[in-house]
């Protein structure tokens, strides 16, 4: 019985101590019954080959032990949907934080674009691994500490279910505001670029100093073209009343144009400047070093805002691309409409 004893001991190693001895005794008895039956059927005494044959039929000890154990979960089926929801929220928050970090990194340290992307992906992955690990541990602790947990067992009313949002329907006021802002931008940057600057009350009189450099003004025609196309896009959208694949593709093209132009500004020469004469006019009693510091701070703040805008626009563009291609979500909604 040397194989039988080893088999039973091995099964016991995978069982909880409380029930181990009892189950081991039962399995031993069961195997002896099987051997007796086999011996009678073959007309031969029990030998090692017969033991091996019977044990093989029973299957590996781990499998036999598992059949005696209740289903065990790190995160059970009742908790799993909540785990997924939490995970989605955590991933979304981390992605936004990483996008903001990416924008700040672009604006502050002026790395090359591939370096900035690599740093962004690396910090996002590190953050994700850390955060997902914490979420898993928290849910595993809840699962372990509340065995037999049943959620959502209360009575529910189908009338209280949330309506499916129509993500393809547009908001007309939103389109009108966007058109107004584009018209305003074209007007101000083409006709009144000097309005963009810093104003200060000096000796009871308002003094205004323009801050945009030639580097920026050279890009204004391109920005104007983009804003004009954006107006056309919004008019098209308003006339349709709903998003359509062609409108989504046009939005992607506009987003990419915007990213490219902002990229030119971020990686190009300074587009904001304040010299000492301007500072004196504004009534700032600062030396050259202090003026440089103030200018740099303003410039950095604007660049950070632009970097964050680039990152968020890039994320939205990727999401649009995903919905249009891999997910195939829009055709499904179109079919339903």
């Amino acid at each position: 019985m040397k194989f039988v004893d080893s088999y039973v001991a091995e099964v016991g190693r995978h069982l909880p101590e409380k029930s181990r001895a009892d189950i081991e005794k039962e399995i031993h008895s069961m195997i002896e019954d099987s051997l007796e039956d086999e011996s009678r059927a073959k007309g031969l005494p029990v030998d090692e080959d017969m033991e091996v044959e019977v044990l093989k039929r029973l299957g590996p000890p781990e499998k036999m032990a598992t059949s005696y154990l209740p289903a065990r979960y790190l995160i059970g089926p009742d908790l799993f949907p909540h785990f997924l929801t939490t995970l989605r929220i955590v991933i979304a928050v981390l992605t936004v934080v990483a996008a903001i970090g990416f924008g700040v990194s672009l604006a502050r340290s002026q790395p090359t674009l591939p370096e900035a992307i690599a740093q962004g992906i690396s910090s996002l992955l590190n953050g994700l691994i850390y955060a997902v690990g914490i979420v898993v541990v928290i849910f595993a602790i809840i699962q372990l500490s509340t065995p037999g947990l049943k959620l959502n067992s209360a009575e529910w009313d189908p009338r209280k279910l949330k309506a499916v949002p129509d993500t393809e329907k547009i908001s007309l006021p939103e389109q009108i505001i966007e058109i107004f802002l584009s018209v305003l931008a074209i007007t101000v940057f083409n006709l009144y670029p000097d309005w963009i600057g810093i104003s200060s009350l000096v000796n009871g009189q308002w003094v205004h100093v323009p801050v945009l450099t030639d580097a920026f003004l050279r890009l204004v025609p391109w920005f104007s073209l983009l804003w004009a196309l954006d107006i056309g896009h919004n008019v098209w959208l308003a006339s349709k009343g709903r998003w359509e694949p062609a409108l989504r593709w046009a939005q992607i093209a506009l987003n990419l144009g915007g990213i490219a132009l902002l990229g030119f500004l971020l990686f190009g020469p300074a587009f904001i400047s304040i010299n000492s004469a301007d500072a004196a006019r504004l009534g700032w009693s600062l030396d050259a070093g202090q003026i440089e510091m103030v200018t740099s701070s303003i410039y950095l703040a604007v660049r950070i805002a632009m970097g964050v805008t680039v990152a968020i626009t890039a994320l939205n563009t990727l999401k649009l691309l995903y919905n249009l291609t891999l997910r195939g979500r829009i055709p499904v909604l179109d079919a339903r409409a």
Partner: protein
Amino acid sequence: MTQGQTVENLIQELRRGVIVLAVLNHLKEEQYGYSVMKLLADQGLEVDQGTLYPLLRRLETQGLLESSWRLEDARPRRYYVMSEEGRQVLPRLNAEWSKIVSSLEQSLT
């Protein structure tokens, strides 16, 4: 998964539901695990030991069976028999089974 595997899995699921009823019906009188397995096999219901023995323990935990160890020919054997609660539950299970069978027979013919 091939069609054969899918069918095999579905058959396993069907049998899993039936085994509890078959086992309970065989334990109106005292039996040890191996003898229950042989009785089921004689009726054409093959159940492997890794399924039957844990099932017997589970039914005992649920209060439907009772068990006791007994020495036979210097060998310990665990005998199972239906508990009082099991005897109350079994007719209801059998009635439900009859309803399922008659309902399915209508669909199958």
